[in-house]
């Protein structure tokens, strides 16, 4: 033990005034204040270290929330759109392809021009009016018309998205004192915007599109809906594969395996795989699942498989800990009344270890949900507009969507990026909370 070698200051011996010990005692007393100061400094370093960590935690959350909360509202125009029969359906056939290809943007421009008092006959003015609207405005009006073709010929109030620039101006992200060339809005347009805000036809509404839309090159119509579905598919794959495999492996290693070279090898492998960089799993997925097995690129099943391999060590380690925590007396009791080893495990050990297994599984899933790098390798960096209908369809994942928005040049994506990060963090916090609650509620101390 190291105790003997420690040069601790000696306690002063009890002694008289002329004793040589008195000098030592005085020396020790003198050094005491220095030592206590060192003690205080050491404590302060500890406090500072913790504060540093907490400060960054606060900064990180603060910055993401501050930059991202505005993504949950989106500026929209309430337009009284006259669904002109002559524009939409001149033949009166209600032909689907005619309804699909009609010039709805023109209708929206006209309606907005009336709302803000622009001259509908002046072409330059109409063009400027058009720039205030999202480029996908035709899709929104078309949807209204296709849902109920009997509206054609009537004037209906429709909420349509404003252009990204308008949205940024309203949220104060675009300085209105900038010269018109840099802010890319003319004075005329700003006066229209002010007018629209004043008469209530332009306001910020809850942004449902953020949760339901797919990828888009226009910030105002981009959303994480498609990415969420892709992530869901991947999580299902992980749950279906990693949990049975992980629990089975853990049961074998903890209950059956003899200590020999083979089990040692497995153990070293599991511990090591838990620390292998995630990007290496991506390379594995690319080489094995895509190039060798011929699975399609960008498919969520490949992502799910890669994440399964990544999550497996986490689940195995957690399950082994949970199984190991079940006291041997339970096993002995079951064996004593005649249960086989397998029955002991399935009837007694696994049910008792279940809370621990579930906690480990949820934490593993949370880790998999936030993982980005391996998914970049297998082509999940895709511009996916349609919802994936099967695990083999092209898909993307929530963190990859964040990555794609973060690297996008358009400024309007900044708040979306942070908003999506906020949603991801919220999901992860929920999962971790569930894990904590499970542990608190069902944890047994034997």
């Amino acid at each position, binding site marked *: 033990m190291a105790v003997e070698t420690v040069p601790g200051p000696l306690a002063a011996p009890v002694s008289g005034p002329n004793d040589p010990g008195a000098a030592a005692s005085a020396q020790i007393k003198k050094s005491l204040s220095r030592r206590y100061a060192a003690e205080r400094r050491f404590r302060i370093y500890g406090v500072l270290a913790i504060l540093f960590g907490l400060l*960054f*935690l606060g900064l990180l959350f603060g910055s993401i929330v501050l930059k991202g909360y505005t993504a949950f509202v989106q500026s929209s125009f309430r337009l009284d759109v006259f669904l002109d029969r002559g524009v939409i359906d001149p033949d009166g056939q209600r032909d689907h392809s005619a309804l699909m290809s009609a010039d709805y943007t023109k209708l929206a421009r006209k309606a907005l021009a009336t709302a803000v008092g622009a001259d509908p006959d002046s072409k330059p003015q109409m063009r400027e009016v058009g720039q205030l609207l999202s480029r996908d405005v035709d899709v929104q009006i078309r949807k209204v018309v296709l849902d109920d073709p009997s509206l054609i010929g009537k004037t209906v109030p429709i909420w349509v998205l404003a252009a990204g620039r308008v949205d940024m101006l309203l949220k104060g992200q675009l300085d209105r004192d900038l010269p018109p060339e840099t802010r890319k809005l003319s004075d005329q347009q700003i006066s229209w915007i002010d007018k629209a805000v004043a008469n209530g036809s332009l306001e910020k509404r809850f942004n449902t599109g953020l949760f339901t839309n797919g990828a888009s090159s226009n910030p105002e119509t981009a959303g994480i809906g498609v990415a969420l579905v892709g992530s869901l598919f991947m999580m299902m794959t992980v749950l279906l594969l990693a949990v049975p*495999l992980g629990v089975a492996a853990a049961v*074998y290693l903890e209950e059956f395996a003899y200590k020999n070279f083979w089990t040692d090898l497995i153990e070293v492998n599991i511990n090591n795989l838990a620390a292998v960089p995630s990007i290496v799993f991506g390379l594995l997925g690319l080489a094995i699942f895509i190039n060798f097995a011929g699975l399609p690129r960008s498919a969520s099943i490949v992502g799910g498989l890669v994440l399964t391999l990544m999550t497996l060590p986490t689940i195995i380690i957690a399950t082994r800990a949970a199984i190991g925590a079940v006291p041997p007396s339970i096993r002995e009791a079951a064996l004593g009344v005649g249960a086989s080893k397998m029955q002991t495990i399935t009837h007694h050990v696994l049910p008792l270890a279940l809370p621990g297994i579930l906690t480990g599984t949820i934490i593993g899933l949370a880790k998999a949900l936030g993982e980005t790098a391996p998914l970049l390798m297998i082509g999940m960096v895709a511009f996916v507009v349609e919802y994936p209908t099967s695990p083999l369809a092209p898909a993307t994942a929530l963190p990859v969507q964040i990555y794609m928005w973060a690297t996008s040049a358009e400024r309007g994506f900044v708040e979306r990026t942070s908003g999506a990060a906020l949603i991801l963090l919220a999901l992860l916090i929920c999962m971790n909370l569930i894990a904590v609650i499970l542990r608190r509620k069902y944890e047994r101390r034997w």
Partner: protein
Amino acid sequence: MPTSIILLGLCIAALLAFVLGLARANALAKKGDAQLHSLPGYFGAYLALWTLLPALIVTLAWSAAEPIVIRNMVSSGLPENVRALSPAEQSLVIGRINAVARGLPKLSRDDYDIVRKARYGFTSPADAQRVLQERGVALGSAPESYVIAAAYDQVELQSRAALIITGLAAAIAAFGFIYANWRVHPKLRARNAVEAVVLVALILASTVAILTTIGIICSMLFETLHFFNYVTPWRFFFGTEWDPRFSAAGSSGGGEGQFGLLPLLWGTLYISIVALLVAVPVGLFSAIYMSEYATRSVRTIAKPLLEILAGIPTIVYGLFALITFGPYLRDAGGYVGLDISASSVLTAGLIMGVMLIPFVSSLSDDIINAVPQSLREGSYGLGATQSETIRRVILPAALPGIVGAILLAASRAIGETMIVVLAAGIAANLTLNPFEPVTTITVKIVSQLTGDLEFNSPQTLVAFALGLTLFVFTLGLNIYALYIVRKYREQYE
């Protein structure tokens, strides 16, 4: 897909077998001639396993081998001059054959007859092309007759194979069921048999970890050796210039690129060092404070809060570095006259350091707590203050474990991807200046492999060489660190 239908059918058959077995075991039990060896459920499972497993194994083996066998049969039927083509050209031909083969099932019966006639030379390939085009199978040029023939053969072989395997699976399942049913007897050790199968399944599950490691090593080694056909190992490991030169699509080979590992390795190590300079003191001091000084209430609040840092996905750290921290550092640097670029060693290193704090602190916390109380008490008894005890007794005693924790953190830092992708820059610089951007191995793996790429250029293959380097590096660190930590734990147990 016939395989999935066969699998579904097998599952249903297994379910039926289970129900039948259960019923039969119950009947046997009621008759009461002899006591059943196992519970009735095990008899059901016994029958189900015999029905399912042999057929399942055969089906899976078949569906793994089928595409390879068919491809071989089809390509051996190709004319001599096609088989003499280079592999790249041959894969083009195979691609066209596959395109036609995918189109064939969409044809109506009459149109299919036309293709059949074209295959046997009764009509011209142009007719086959016409009917295919009507079904939306676009073929650039008129297909050569051998393409039509090969595609037709492929489709015919596939449908024949599907028939064979369906029949085979059904027959094997039936035989399995009949055999198991014949074996059913009150004395049958059904439970032992079922449990043996379950045990085999458990063992197989536990080998997945080994298979994964083998998969990682093999796949990367294979592609890396392939890469070394283009670039010598010497120029890769000791080159000081990184300039892979993406060639324009189409021009095969492209210009000579430089694939020097050193700038990337330097960037990786530099950022990791900066990260560890942040993470080790902060993590260590917070671990010491948590385990030695903090009151219970402080610990219950601060510890989970710090551990949140470990749960935040790295993409969020990267985002924070990209949109908040990097620009802030740049502005702050400009204020005091330092030229810091928004993505720099400092930005990436600091943020990565923050990410590693909980990693270092929770491992060190465990290790410090494992130091026996008697050492502390001995030191206090000699009159040492608490901080002296920590510095001179606990830390030296815990040192090997802490070194292990730091090595694990270092391996994390080296393999970290998203933070450096967003915050470190993409230019390969060999620089000592922490305010300049550098790039890392992981960044380059990502940038070489994102996008649509062909797989036989050094530009993409280099990613596997980089990945293998990364894997070997982190593997060495991990194994050494785990060895130290393990040995240390045993020391005080």
